[in-house]
């Protein structure tokens, strides 16, 4: 497979997994938690590297899940002791991210793990780091990790689909029916952490937030069904990823930056033209109402 095809495939996998997880993030009103987790997983990656001296898939994933869960627990802990929720999020993730940055700068800084890479990602390097996979031949490490995480996320969402729906819509009813709302919350936080860290290599901590939130926020404007929202969000993620790649090639600029920009374009178009919630249709109905 060609160099460009690997990048497009990897970027699309980022779009798919972030899009699907993002839909639930938006509906659970946890967009800010995505921002938090995407930064604090850096600490998880660095610590995992310090312990194992490896930057391979599985260590990074475990480190990220632990860091993500720690973020969720700490945010909840401060909040339950009287700190406002958004302040609590802001305090926890910046501190964890800062520790990660300090550790990188002093202990582990090298070609593969530096602050710029962590923030912006470097999708152009991805096709160079390949691993041998039975039957499939050589495929890039990041692509393999993303595929595995995508499969896991889709599997967990599908088997607990009705539980995700009810705990997102009405957690009080869910709890009264005996559905473990708190456990589901932490499973979800783990999924966000996994998705974030898998996408990290490609698009970095800041752009992953764009991929998690913006396609989902766009999809929300187009449909009244949860399942369709998830599929649309995944589709918008892929479209933005591919569009971003070609914008980057055209302007000769950062791929991850262009991908995030493309998610913004998709959102703007949705905001203006979606038939249900779009600005254009609302103005149209308003003028139609005024005419009658």
């Amino acid at each position, binding site marked *: 497979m060609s160099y460009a095809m690997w990048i497009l495939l990897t970027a699309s996998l980022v779009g798919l997994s972030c899009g699907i997880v993002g839909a639930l993030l938006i*509906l659970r*009103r946890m967009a800010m938690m995505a921002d938090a987790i995407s930064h604090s997983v850096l600490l998880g990656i660095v610590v995992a590297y310090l312990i194992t001296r490896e930057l391979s898939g599985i260590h990074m994933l475990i480190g990220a899940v632990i860091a993500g869960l720690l973020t969720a627990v700490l945010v909840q802990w401060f909040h339950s002791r*009287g700190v406002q929720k958004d302040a609590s999020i802001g305090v926890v993730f910046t501190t964890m991210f800062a520790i990660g940055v300090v550790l990188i700068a002093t202990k582990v800084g090298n070609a593969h793990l530096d602050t710029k890479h962590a923030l912006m990602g470097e999708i152009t390097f991805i096709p160079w780091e390949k691993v041998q996979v039975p039957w499939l031949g050589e495929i890039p490490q990041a692509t393999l990790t993303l595929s595995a995480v995508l499969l896991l996320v889709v599997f967990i969402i599908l*088997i*607990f*689909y*009705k*539980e995700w*729906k*009810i705990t*997102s*819509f*009405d957690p*009080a*009813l*869910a*709890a*009264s*029916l*005996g*559905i473990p709302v708190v456990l589901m919350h932490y499973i979800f936080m783990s999924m966000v952490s996994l998705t974030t860290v898998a996408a990290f290599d490609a698009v970095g901590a800041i752009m992953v937030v764009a991929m998690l939130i913006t396609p989902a926020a766009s999809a*929300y404007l187009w*449909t*009244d*069904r*949860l399942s*369709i*929202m998830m599929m649309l969000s995944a589709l918008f993620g892929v479209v933005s990823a591919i569009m971003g790649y070609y914008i980057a090639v055209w302007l000769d600029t950062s791929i991850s930056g262009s991908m995030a920009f493309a998610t913004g374009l998709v959102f703007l178009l949705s905001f203006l033209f979606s038939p249900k919630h779009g600005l254009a249709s609302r103005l149209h109905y308003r003028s139609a109402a005024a005419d009658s």
Partner: protein
Amino acid sequence: MMSVIEVKDVSASYRKNQVLHNVNFEVQPGTLTAIIGPNGAGKSTLLKVLLELHPKLSGSVSFLGSNLKRMKKRIGYVPQRGSVDWDFPTHALDVVTMGLYGHIGWFRRPNRKHVERAMACLKQMGMEDYAYRQISQLSGGQQQRVFLARALVQDADLYFMDEPLAGVDAATEKAIMHTLKELKEQGKTVMVVHHDLQTVEDYFDHVLLLNRSVWAHGPTKEVFTQDNVYRTYGGTLRWMKEA
């Protein structure tokens, strides 16, 4: 007769403020009880504590002599309408079907039978024409009827409802009260957080006056007196029927 609910010395706090203090009461089966009290009296918190959605500091709650865990499938809960996001991408029938998720169990999806049951309950609330309507497009009264339908589909023996009549239109109020009386006639027990003192006597056969603790509890005719209401509301009562 054995009490359906037995609450002993229950206390609970919310953000360091104690909102419930040594609450004691027992509820007999087949009764329709209004929980009334001023704002901040702990009415919603009481329901949440009974359902273990909010932790209690002390005391005990038992249902038919058993604990909540064993009784969960026989208890229905209607949260306040404002507690959920009505912009959620789903339709009325789907919300009602959620009432069955506990029965359906893990790893299984609602099948046609479940959806038919949900539809029958929507119909019972006069909402069958709105089954596939996105929930944000329903009026406040219609949303409340959807919540009631969701409680009905649970087919519980004991219901807790948090302000089901708040902000609804007259037709919805009538439909909901008709449904509550039917539940009572079927021998079910219903406890309702209620805010309208004028309708207590018409709607409920029992009343529980709550302001951090229970000030009076019993049959409406005996307990819902001007004296008791004044005592419960302290100085905060703005309206009282001319006796």
